[in-house]
Structure formats: structure tokens, C-alpha cells
């Protein structure tokens, strides 16, 4: 009898973990992803074949013109190559200088380790725009470095550091380092520490134990960090806008100008699809070999 009331009350003809209930639960998220992620990208794909008439006006006559223009004009190739280069340089530098703090936090005997981790998360809470423009106070003509250099009499005129590609890469590193450090840290945390003790007890020095055990086992985190940094750097818009000159614009700025400035929507769609496919294939190659789980760990901190 009791069993029957339980059945009746809880299930009412539905199994305990009924797939239909699951679909109800995921319906809002699925609908949102469909309307705001999948459909836009599909429509954008169709738009790349539309004919551009004049600013803000296009025609639904299908054409290869946009693709032809992208594939033949070296102006676009230059942007793409520069964007990929900046993305790779940024990711590589983040990997090299991000490894040290990740390793330090993992290996340190410091009691307030949580504070070091918290300080890595705090930048995520500070507006990205503010973090980016704050570099103007360091690199600009009235920035900290130039004011010091001139006070010390090392230069008479301010050194041009802002509005260069270096400044853009620096801003990107500033934005992406926490991602890199957290990714490496998460994978270091996953290492069974007895493996290192074992290596040490069998005669490895600290350095050898690091090279033979710790470093190889932390590579998945490093790879996830590199992928994430590359994709986010290559897709950036605000950083080149604030810290670079017109010459340092990246692909994201090109897309913005094509759409919001020239109002050439079909070309803007074409450029967006190009960036999406290029970055998507990098991510796909990565997941093919490494899987998604490491990124999931890194993103959820």
C-alpha cells in the first residue's frame, strides 16, 4: 500500500528519471542556445552569399562575390595572419610566465595559499575595460614608466610604448594570464603526489622529478590554457581598440568596422564565419587529441 502511494505521488505515470522530464528541464537552455547561438551562426552563413548593394542595404540574390573578395584580397589575409600571430605569441608568453605562479601555488608550503588563488580570481571580477585602460597609466606619455624615466633624466621626451603591437600583446597577456595559471594549477592539483615522492626516493633530484614526472603530467592543463588563450586573444576586440593604433587592429576590429562602420553586412558575415571556422578548427584539433574535460575543469575553476 505504502509502495503504491509512493508510486502514485512521485511518478504519476512518469519514471523517476524520465527523459521527458529532462527535456522539460533543459528546454529553456536549449531554446536559448538554438535561437541565440545556432540560428544566428546558420543565418550568418547564408548571409555570406548575399549581395551587398550599398551601406546597410543588401540583396538576397546569392553570389560568391564576398568569398571571392576575401580569398583574393591580401588586405584580409594580412589581418588574418596578424591576428593568428598575435594570438600565438600571446598564448606562448602566457604559457611560459604562467607556469611559474601555478607551480609556486601548488608547491608552496605557504599557509594562506587560498589568498594567492583568490587574487587570481579577483581580476575576473574587475571590468575588462577598466583593466585594459589602466595600462594607459603605466605605458602612456603621462604613465608611470615615462614619468620615472624623465625624472631620472634617462630620456627627454616620453618613449612611445602605448598604441603599439607590444602594448596590445601586453594587454592581452594581462587579461589571459589568470586563465592560463588556473588551468595549469588545476592539472597540477590532479597529480598524485606520491608519484613525486616515489621518483625522489628512487634517486631523482628535485629538478629531475620535475622534468620526468610533474611537467609531463601537467601538460594537459598547459595545452588547455594555450588553446583558451589563443582563441580568446585572436577573438579580442576591446584590447586592440584601446591599446593599439589603427595599424594594430585585429580581425575582431575589422569585423566591427565592416558591420558598424561600413554597414557592409554580407562582408561582415563572411569575415565572422572565417574567424569562426579558423578558431573552431583550432579548438576542434585540440579536443580531438585532448578532449573537452580539461577546458571544463579550467573554466569552472
Amino acid at each position, binding site marked *: 500500500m505504502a509502495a503504491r502511494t509512493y508510486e502514485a505521488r512521485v511518478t504519476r505515470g512518469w519514471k523517476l528519471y524520465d527523459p521527458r522530464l529532462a527535456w522539460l528541464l533543459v528546454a529553456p537552455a536549449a531554446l*536559448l542556445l538554438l535561437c541565440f547561438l545556432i540560428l544566428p551562426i546558420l543565418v550568418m552563413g547564408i548571409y555570406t552569399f548575399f549581395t551587398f548593394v550599398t551601406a546597410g542595404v543588401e540583396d538576397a540574390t546569392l553570389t560568391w562575390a564576398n568569398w571571392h573578395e576575401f580569398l583574393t584580397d591580401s588586405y584580409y589575409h594580412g589581418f588574418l595572419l596578424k591576428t593568428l600571430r598575435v594570438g600565438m605569441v600571446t598564448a606562448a608568453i602566457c604559457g611560459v610566465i604562467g607556469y611559474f605562479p601555478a607551480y*609556486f601555488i601548488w608547491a608552496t608550503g605557504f599557509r594562506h595559499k587560498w589568498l594567492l588563488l583568490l587574487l587570481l580570481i579577483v581580476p575576473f571580477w574587475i571590468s575588462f*575595460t*577598466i583593466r585594459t585602460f589602466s595600462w*594607459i597609466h603605466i605605458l602612456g606619455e603621462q604613465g608611470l614608466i615615462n614619468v620615472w624615466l624623465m625624472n631620472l633624466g634617462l630620456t627627454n621626451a616620453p618613449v612611445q610604448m602605448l598604441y603599439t603591437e607590444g602594448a596590445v600583446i601586453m594587454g592581452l597577456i594581462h587579461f589571459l594570464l589568470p586563465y592560463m595559471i588556473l588551468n595549469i594549477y588545476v592539472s597540477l592539483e590532479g597529480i598524485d603526489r606520491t608519484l613525486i615522492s616515489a621518483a625522489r626516493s628512487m634517486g631523482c633530484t628535485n629538478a629531475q622529478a620535475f622534468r620526468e614526472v610533474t611537467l609531463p603530467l601537467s601538460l594537459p592543463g598547459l595545452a588547455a590554457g594555450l588553446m583558451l588563450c589563443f582563441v580568446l586573444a585572436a577573438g579580442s576586440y576591446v584590447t586592440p581598440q584601446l591599446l593599439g593604433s589603427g595599424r594594430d587592429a585585429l580581425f575582431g576590429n575589422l569585423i566591427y568596422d565592416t558591420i558598424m562602420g561600413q554597414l557592409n553586412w554580407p562582408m561582415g558575415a563572411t569575415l565572422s564565419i572565417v574567424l569562426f571556422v579558423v578558431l573552431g578548427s583550432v579548438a576542434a584539433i585540440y579536443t580531438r587529441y585532448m578532449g573537452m574535460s580539461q577546458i571544463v575543469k579550467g573554466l569552472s575553476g
Partner: protein
Amino acid sequence: MSGARDREGRWAWALTRLVTVLVYVFMFAPILATVVLSFNKSMFGGFPMTGFSFQWYGKLLENAAVVQAFKTSLWIAVVTAAVTTLVGIVTALALVRFDFRGKGLLGTLVILPALVPETILGVGLLILIKSIDQPRSLPILVLGHILLALPYVVLIAQARMVGVKRIYEEAAMSLGASRLSTFREITLPLLIPAVVAGALLAFTISFDNTSASLFWRPAGVETMPTQILSMLKTSISPEVNALGTVMIVMTVGIPLIGGILIQIFTRRTRRYKTRETA
């Protein structure tokens, strides 16, 4: 021999410590410079400091555009946080507890908004609403922000949900609780840390969002970050520094207070539990 190797290890550790310190300085020096300069008396936004003053904060309150943008961003972020948390929690519940067709696909899709560059998401949605002849509007901007925050909320809730044993829920239901009251009485209280963390993160993601908002905002509407961007177009003024400082205090302060509240909350329930068993 072994001494030389030990020295190598010591050098490596010293180098690690040095780079770590430098990285933390690198991360926070520019932000500190902004905060310090917001109190500068000079009417230029840069160094050197010429005196201490609160005047730029006063100027900020008189700036109607800034106050308006602040209000806009605030309510967008509050709505985004509320809706994303709700949707994210039920999605995570389904992804962790249930088996259904398309689960793997959905699990991957839901992370994508965090990986696809905002410029692409921005252009895509804009083209979609243009192709169906809809104007840009605030609801679309809010839904866009919900899309951008969803991956993080789902991931946080999933990570927490995995740690909550389904036996508790099944026990409640076998004792006669309905699904809804089981969720309210058992699942939700156990998920509170994830709910708070997710809501705070969704709030900051929305409040901070720049690139996508530039595409999605209706004509004439400025959010806080787009307002800052347009103020930066001319030059960096002390007012922008003051505005930046206010935002830093807000966006760092809210999660910190939230975190402390969670700590106090969990400590109290733990104490309550131990008293109960004793």
C-alpha cells in the same frame, strides 16, 4: 655532486618565487594606478600626482550619462543573474541526474558561448534580428547576456551537483515528498553555494560585458562599459579613473561579501549539525 644539484633546485625555486611575485605585481599594478589616480587633484588623468582630492567622484554623480548607464547596467545585470541562475540550475540538474537523448550534444553546446569570440556571437545575433526585421531592443540584449553567462552557471552548478548524492533526493521522495518539494527542501539547500556563486558570476559577466553589448544595445542606450569606452575616445580623464574605481569596489566587493556570507552560513549550519548529533 648532489650539492650542485641541490643548488640547481634552490635556484629554480628562487626563480619560481621571483616570477610569481612579478606576475602578481604585473596583474595589479595598473589597477592600483587607476585607483590612486582617481584621487589626483590634477585635471589630467595621468601621473604625476599633484594633490589629494575627492572632486572627481562628485563630478561623477553630476554626470547624468554616467548615472543613466550605471542604472541600465545594474538592472540588466540583476535580471541576467536571476534568469541565468534559474535556467542554469535546472539545466545542470538534468545533465547530472538524467539520461536522455542529446545529452552529450547539449553538454557541449552549453559551453560554446564561453569559447566562441563575442564578436562572432554579436554579429550573428545582429544579422538574425536584421533578417527577420526586428529592431535591437533591451530584451534581446538581456537574453544575449544570459547566453554569455549560461556556460559558467551550468559548469558551477554541475560541479556542485555531482557532489550531492541522489540518495538524499530519492529518500525524500520515497518518504512521500513530491518532486517539487524534494527539490526545494533537499536539492536546493545543498546547492546554495553554487547558486550564490553562479548568480554573482552571472551578474559580473553581464555588468562587465563590452564587445557583444556594442553590437546588441539599442541605439542611444549605453551600458557602463560602453559608456567608459566612449569616454575614453577623447582622452583619459580623472573622471574615468574615479568611475573605474567605483566599479572595481563594487564588482570586487559584492562577490567578496557573498563569499564571506557563504562561509558564515556553512559554518553555522555545520555547528548546528554537530550540536544536533551531540
